[in-house]
């Protein structure tokens, strides 16, 4: 292993035994750290390989139609992922739609308006929301949020029932409740990443806009937000990635019915809650393989989303470092 100048290794002393011995110890240690670092890469590769092997029976049996079929019949061994994919996308979309305005507002408040003594505590409290374990949010969701959502859903159904998404019977356990739960869970990450993006906007952008006579809101709207747009999009996508993979809280409030319906008040399922509910009891090979293929779909989507989000957030910080 060659050390480059940046890491400041002493030049090797050639032909002297103590020098060689010192290099020897360093080499062992650096190779040891390398091995542990490679463990991380190996786990990631192992995940991809193992999921693919485990899902192989289902992939070869159903092919691409797995993604488009909505049957889930265990005795007949006919499996399709569509309702689970639909539920995952729908609940995540609801979560992101509600969470983005709140998080963006909170981030603007934290950077542009809050007095400095208030910034730290406020950020800390919002981030604390992310520390509450998912299963506890789910417990709260069953006994507090779901009963609270029932009258809201009934009101929406009464006044806007002519729109298909607000049509249907109300249980409290629904796509909408799951979406609201996801909102609560992704507000912290979207707020934190947007806050950092807004903070990275150089002050001269604001000063130039204010000097033109703009109000503070106009400065934020026309100078600050456009400047850090890619960071804000990255924050949203990171939130989306979190929402797609969320399991316990959603499983506890979505009602777990495998169906495809436009109604937000209907019980439903997501990829992760389908797996959580059935993987432990799955016995036949094809059943297990189908559940693993669901996991593979989830893994692929979150992988893609995280890579895109990282690239967007990185680009912004790179711009900041260059300026």
């Amino acid at each position, binding site marked *: 292993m060659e050390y*480059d100048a940046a890491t*400041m*290794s002493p030049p090797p002393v050639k032909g002297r035994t103590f020098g060689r011995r*010192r290099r020897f*110890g*360093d080499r062992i*240690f*650096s190779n*040891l750290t*390398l091995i*542990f*670092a490679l*463990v*991380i*890469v190996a*786990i*990631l590769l*192992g*995940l991809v390989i193992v*999921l693919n092997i*485990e899902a192989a029976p289902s992939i070869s049996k159903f092919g691409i139609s797995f993604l488009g079929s909505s049957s889930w019949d265990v005795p007949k061994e006919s499996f399709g992922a569509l309702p689970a994919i639909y539920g995952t996308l729908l609940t995540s979309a609801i979560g992101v739609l509600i969470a983005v*305005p*709140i998080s*963006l*507002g*909170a981030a603007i*408040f934290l950077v*542009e*308006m*809050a007095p400095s003594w208030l910034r*730290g505590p406020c950020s800390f*409290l*919002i981030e*604390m*929301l992310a*520390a*509450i*374990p*998912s*299963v506890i949010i789910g*417990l*709260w969701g*069953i006994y507090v949020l779901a009963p609270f959502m029932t009258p809201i859903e009934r009101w929406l159904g009464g006044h806007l029932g002519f729109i298909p998404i607000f049509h249907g019977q109300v249980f409290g356990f629904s796509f909408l409740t799951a979406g609201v739960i996801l909102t609560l869970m992704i507000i912290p990450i979207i707020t934190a990443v947007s806050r950092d993006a807004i903070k990275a906007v150089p002050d001269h952008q604001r000063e130039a806009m204010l000097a033109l006579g703009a*109000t*503070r*809101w*106009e400065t*934020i709207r026309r100078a600050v937000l456009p400047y850090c747009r890619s960071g804000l999009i990255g924050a949203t996508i990171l939130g989306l990635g979190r929402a*797609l*993979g969320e399991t*316990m809280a959603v499983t506890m409030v979505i009602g777990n019915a495998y169906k495809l319906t436009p109604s937000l008040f209907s019980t439903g399922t997501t990829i*992760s809650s389908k*797996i959580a509910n059935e993987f*432990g009891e799955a016995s036949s090979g094809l059943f297990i393989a189908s559940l*693993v293929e669901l*996991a593979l779909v*989830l*893994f692929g989507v979150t*992988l893609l989303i*995280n890579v895109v989000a990282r690239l967007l957030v990185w680009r912004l910080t790179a711009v900041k470092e260059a300026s």
Partner: protein
Amino acid sequence: MSERNHLRRKWFNRLMLVLSGCAAGLAILILALILGYILVHGISYINLNFLTQAAKPVGEAGGGMRNEIIGSLILIGLASILAIPVGLMAGIFVSDFASPKMAATVRFASDILAGVPSIVVGIFAYAILVRPMHSFSALSAGVALAIIMVPIIARTAEESLRLVPNSMREAALALGITRWRAVLSVIVPGALTGIITGVMLSLARVAGETAPLLFTALGSNFGYQGLTKPIGALPLQIYHYALSPYADWQHQAWAAAFLLLLLVLCISILVRWISGRRHA
């Protein structure tokens, strides 16, 4: 005309600023509602039996979560033993030994690993450990939790190691010691608060993880019976009891949620306190 325009802009400005303040307030209000409800509701069901007794079978009143509390501690301990060396050494590699290209690769892998949904990690642990060993086990659950901890530890360790000034590295090497001694006796101690913070954050995260335990630890009414046997854990029991129709079990779920939340909050506040002191 321009006067009215000016007034309109001024009021719109105020409206939007107030709205963004409200958004921040709303986020904090939600936290207060959830925390307040669980803490107030949960503490009323905490009692000595809950802490010291094992779970009773269906239909019998009473019982507690002693086994699950111990089970959770065992799982967290096992995951830490597996994850801390890997995370720390990987962090050292990236900050002090890797070429820029290797550093980027490992960092990327660990970022991606951090984003993998925890239920997928559970399936992975099931496939590589539970099925070959023909039994749900504490070991497989520990491995699943460790996989979740590693990227968090590696990333925070790397970041705090890089914060150690290069002059410290130069000074250590100028004394004539080898690089590995310099890393272990100067650089790692210099970054220790940051490293500990990262470990504590990862502990707070896995203490409440439930999804990866569903098909690894499974849950057990008998307490700890060895690493290759199923084991109970607090978050698993919260999940099972929350969905049960028995009031007594639901109360125990609240009590367990209180206990778990208290643990997680204490860690979060401690982390905040430590890192706040470091920056001051």
